[in-house]
């Protein structure tokens, strides 16, 4: 009952805050545009007069207005983030008793849960492959032994002086059964190989999960950085960009950077839809 009320209240609060946030964002953008427009005329006049001191001064003021808008935006985002985090903790009940708190904080630990999925699927895949590894030699022994018996049986059948219809029919059945062990043995072996190949899902799903784990870490780190940035707003004016890579190098790196399994092949025309496409591309490259 009280939970429901809390939820309803939280939702109403969220909606109100969203509206407020949108309004503030619009106001922020507007104040910068206003500042720009207000200086337009004087800036043009100063340019026409050739008064470079005044021009520099106006440009500085425009920059200042832009920076203020930026500080304002960062502050607003940070407050929204703080609220979102606080609400999240409230919603999952992190303020309640210690036992629940412990469990829920574990629930909130997405990365360790995802790592657990990787470990579990790896374990399951290994168990399956253990059984395949055990079954394959057992099968091979059966096939080899039945092949050996079949050869002897053929000789025995040919030399047999027992001409009774019943005996002949039985000997023929044994002969056919031994033959079937060989042929079905091959069929079973190829299915064991299929089972083995199917365990590749663990690699493919694991790669996707690892990327999500990376994403969660990145988001976490970005949030921490954002909060730090907002608490020391002066740093905003000197936004630093990584100076190492040139743009072209960065693009090249991004284009061929490892991405793991493609989970949306239809949507991405750059992605090969299967081995046949890859072979076509390679043969066009002279392979």
């Amino acid at each position: 009952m009280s939970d429901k009320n809390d939820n309803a209240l939280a939702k109403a609060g969220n909606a109100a805050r969203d509206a407020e946030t949108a309004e503030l964002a619009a106001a922020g953008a507007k104040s910068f545009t206003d500042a720009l427009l207000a200086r337009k005329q004087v800036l043009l006049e100063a340019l026409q007069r050739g008064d470079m001191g005044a021009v520099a001064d106006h440009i500085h003021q425009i920059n200042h207005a832009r920076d203020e808008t930026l500080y304002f935006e960062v502050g607003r985002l940070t407050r929204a983030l703080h609220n979102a985090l606080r609400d999240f903790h409230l919603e999952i009940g992190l303020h309640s008793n210690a036992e629940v708190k412990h469990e829920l904080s574990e629930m909130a630990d997405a990365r360790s849960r995802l790592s657990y999925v990787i470990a579990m699927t790896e374990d399951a895949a290994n168990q399956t492959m253990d059984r395949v590894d055990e079954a394959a030699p057992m099968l091979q022994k059966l096939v080899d032994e039945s092949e050996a018996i079949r050869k002897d049986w053929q000789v025995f059948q040919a030399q047999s002086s027992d001409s009774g219809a019943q005996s002949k029919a039985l000997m023929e059945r044994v002969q056919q059964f031994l033959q079937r062990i060989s042929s079905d043995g091959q069929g079973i072996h190829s299915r064991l190989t299929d089972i083995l190949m199917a365990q590749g899902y663990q690699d493919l799903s694991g790669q996707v999960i690892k990327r999500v784990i990376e994403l969660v870490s990145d988001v976490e780190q970005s949030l921490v950085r954002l909060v730090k940035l907002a608490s020391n707003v002066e740093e905003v004016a000197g936004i630093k960009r990584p100076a190492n890579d040139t743009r072209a190098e960065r693009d090249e790196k991004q284009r061929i950077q490892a991405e793991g399994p493609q989970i949306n092949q239809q949507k991405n025309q750059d992605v090969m839809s299967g081995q046949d496409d890859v072979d076509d591309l390679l043969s066009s490259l002279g392979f």
Partner: protein
Amino acid sequence: MKILIVDDFSTMRRIIKNLLRDLGFTNTAEADDGSSALPMLENGQFDFLITDWNMPGMTGIDLLKACRASEKLKTLPILMVTAEAKRDQIIAAAQAGVNGYVVKPFTAAALQEKIEKIFERIDANQ
């Protein structure tokens, strides 16, 4: 024939190892990324390298480039077995000197075919 299998997922190394065993290649070794594979290749007598692309540490494409830059490994046959399936990636691997490219998920037959093709071409060039 000594073969090195490089993949960060032990499941995939095991699958490839089993497939190779079925094909009659029993002398295999494993590494979980390029930086552990490279010294093994430099110091050991490997005849063939099968590598994944996406690995922590040194990736498969960097391993491929490092091999081609090495006097000892510049002609080592290299087959890439990877989930990376973008056009630019395959072209980059081809330009870096890969001998074959298999996309995951793959079939036992596809792997066998690529391996045989690589050795046919090597035999033809000799």
